[in-house]
């Protein structure tokens, strides 16, 4: 039965590697300026993890094949080098791997989190709530109106709790259920949670960030390809969690300007 285990281990190792080697499950196309670094990092890690996985399974298979079910009296041998070589091997191999991945990965992370948005970046406020996203643009005055939680009234489509009667800045704010952005322009997303924790995830944009109630966070990205992409919530937020989504609509600058105008006159 030892031989059978060895064969099954080989089959498992090869079958597990097959979909990866043949690219059966490709990452969706990357439409961001920072995403290629993340994709590279995934590729490098896949190579190292893949070799470790397949290698370890094959070695296990080989050892089981060779040493299982040996007769009593057959000579016992010890691995030459003993435990010392194993410890040194683990430190050297894994240590290098860690340093390599850690240092390279730091860059990819820094691209997203340690750079400030350009001064001219388009500011959009995103509000997450059970179970929808709403997006707010400052309008021609470039100023967001203040949020008043007690004035939030979904029935009257006052999703942000704005008070245009008393707040001049709020009067020209544009509120949309779709995140519309111009292509190749940096966007700074100001993230606000209305009720519980949510998350903003756009696969193609290689962006994922939690909305934290009471903590207004910001992230920035540049979308490089025109199109419509799904924004989904990835933080469990209640019974409609699975259905909480919106669209990211990346437009040409002209289309975007036109859209802004339409929204303002509404």
């Amino acid at each position: 039965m030892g031989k059978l285990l060895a064969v099954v281990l080989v089959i498992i190792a090869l079958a597990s590697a097959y979909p990866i080697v043949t690219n059966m499950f490709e990452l969706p196309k990357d439409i961001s300026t920072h995403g290629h670094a993340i994709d590279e990092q995934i590729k490098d890690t896949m190579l190292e993890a893949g070799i470790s996985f397949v290698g370890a399974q094959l070695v296990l298979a080989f050892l089981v094949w060779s040493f299982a079910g040996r007769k009593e009296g057959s000579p016992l041998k010890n691995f030459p080098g003993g435990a010392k070589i194993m410890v040194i091997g683990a430190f050297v191999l894994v240590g290098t791997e860690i340093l390599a991945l850690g240092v390279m990965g730091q860059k990819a992370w820094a691209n997203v989190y340690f750079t400030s948005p350009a001064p001219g970046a388009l500011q959009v406020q995103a509000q997450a709530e059970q179970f929808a996203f709403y997006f707010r643009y400052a309008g021609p005055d470039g100023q967001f109106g203040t949020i008043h939680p007690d004035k939030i009234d979904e029935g009257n489509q006052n999703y942000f709790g704005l008070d245009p009667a008393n707040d001049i800045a709020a009067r020209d704010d544009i509120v949309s259920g779709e995140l519309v952005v111009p292509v190749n322009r940096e966007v700074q997303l100001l993230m606000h949670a209305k009720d519980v924790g949510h998350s903003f995830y756009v696969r193609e944009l290689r962006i994922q960030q939690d909305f934290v109630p009471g903590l207004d966070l910001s992230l920035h990205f540049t979308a490089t390809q025109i199109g419509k992409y799904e924004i989904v919530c990835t933080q469990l937020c209640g019974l409609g969690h699975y259905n909480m989504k919106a669209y990211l609509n990346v437009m040409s600058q002209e289309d975007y300007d036109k859209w802004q105008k339409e929204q303002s006159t509404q």
Partner: protein
Amino acid sequence: MAESSVEQAHVHAPPEGFIRKYVFSLDHKVIGKQYYGLALAAVFTGMFLSWLMRIHLVWPMLKIPGLELLSKAGAPGGIITPEYYLSLMTMHGTLMVFFVLTNAPFAAFGNYFLPIQIGAEDMAFPRFNMMSFWTTFAAWLVLMLAFFIPDGPPISGWTSYAPLSAVGKDAGPGMEYGMSLWGISIALFCIGSLLGALNFIATTLDLRAKGMTLMRMPLCTWAWFITSCIALLAFAVLLPACILLILDRHAGTSFFIPAGLVISDRVQPHAGGSPLLWQHLFWFFGHPEVYIAILPSMGIISHILVNSLRKPLLSHRVVIYSMMSIGFLSYMVWGHHMFLSGMNPTSALAFSFPTLTITIPATVLTLIWLGSLYGARIQINSASLFSLGFISMFVAGGVSGFFLAQPSIDIYLHATYFVVGHFHMVMGVASLFGVFAGTYFWFPKMTGRMMDETLGKLHFWITFVGTYCIFMPFHYLGLVGNVRRYQSFVDDFMAPYIGWHKFITICALITGAGQLIFLYNLIYSRFKGKPAPENPWNATSLEWTIPSPPPWNNFGGKHPVVYHDPYQYGVKGSKGDFVMQDSPEQVIVSGD
């Protein structure tokens, strides 16, 4: 070495009467079996819930007859609603992590075998021990009660992130009473685990037999000891976290709830709390919990492997030091669950490095296991198959950790099925393989009867192949961005992958059914199994020096004396190729 006064203190009279013998027993062996029974009930419930979830994901309109009886609101006409899916998921996670992965490898086997393996008559505090089981049992009852109240079980997942978990009924069905039951249950569970951990530590340090130095303890005893130290610190943080959560829910405090939240059109009457505080407290427990689940299994499979190899591992000490390092590092990595939580992005790098570093002791362990196979005479039986399977599973689940430990990759893979595949393989299945191996290995000692080997091997093959078929595709689905915790895949891009989900569901049903073979084997062998000799595996540690099953005071009033390291295999002994720990004979290294 035990002082005689200490030894006197923990010895109790033989139990009399059914209740004292089998229910409120002070005997660590009975308590161990009680923990095992509780874990068994929890694991089959948890598995059943996962079946319901998997079926619902791919055949959402399938009527499951009888399900209406479980919850009228949650499954009207036998069809699961979105909120009931989340209830099932929450209960699956909570049952499995707490009542299975903590109870079975650690509390059940630890209770039964730790005192025997160090030559003690019982735990240091037998009454505490009884209390820790019954507190845990109460915790289980409180949790299960959530199924039967009109509100239903909570829907916030086993991590119970605030403010969803803290604001009460505004957060949705199950969040009024169900969530409170969850909080009370886990708080009770923490108390039970703290008492248990204290007991394990005191027992290991104080009650070792003459000659049983720390380095002569078997590897599973070491693993239980290290796990106790981890559990003592981890549950001590989760307990106050649960209390604060209950206070937020019922006493109007705001530990986890900030100002200005509007939930269900109601401005919440809270101000000043922080949702991140819950996450920090929870994961300060939550990550060490992963090692509370896996370390005992590492110890158990090492203990079994060395017996099946008929020669010692490459190094006893290196295995112990590696487990210690893993335990130590497990406290520095909790933030890797929170890379995208909004905490300072610089701290992500600080948490990433120790996370990657934990790979080093884990690799050392794996290499020691692999290197020890070289030149051995591996005996294949159900216990050793599961031990070898553990190595394969541990590597498979471990390498995917490489991805998730890096914050930059986590941006893409966080909250996808990749994460689900990763932790199910390494924390769930690998840990359960340790439990299965331990069961096949120790069942003869615990019951005095052998388990059926043919059924055991069949169980192994179904479980081993089935697990890969279920959880490998999870990783692939994660790579394409398949988000977890969804009751249905409404995103357009998911359509082409539904076929894979169907494949997973079918494999889950088959693998789950395979576990019934194990259950049958347990029950059948308990009553009809071949009578077991004292030492069926020609093993060396102290549990094999006493009758099967052991008498109530383990060593029949005698005090064992230990002369050797625990694993004297491949030597010339009077009984064969091994020398037992309590045998005064000299160890002569075999010439062949």
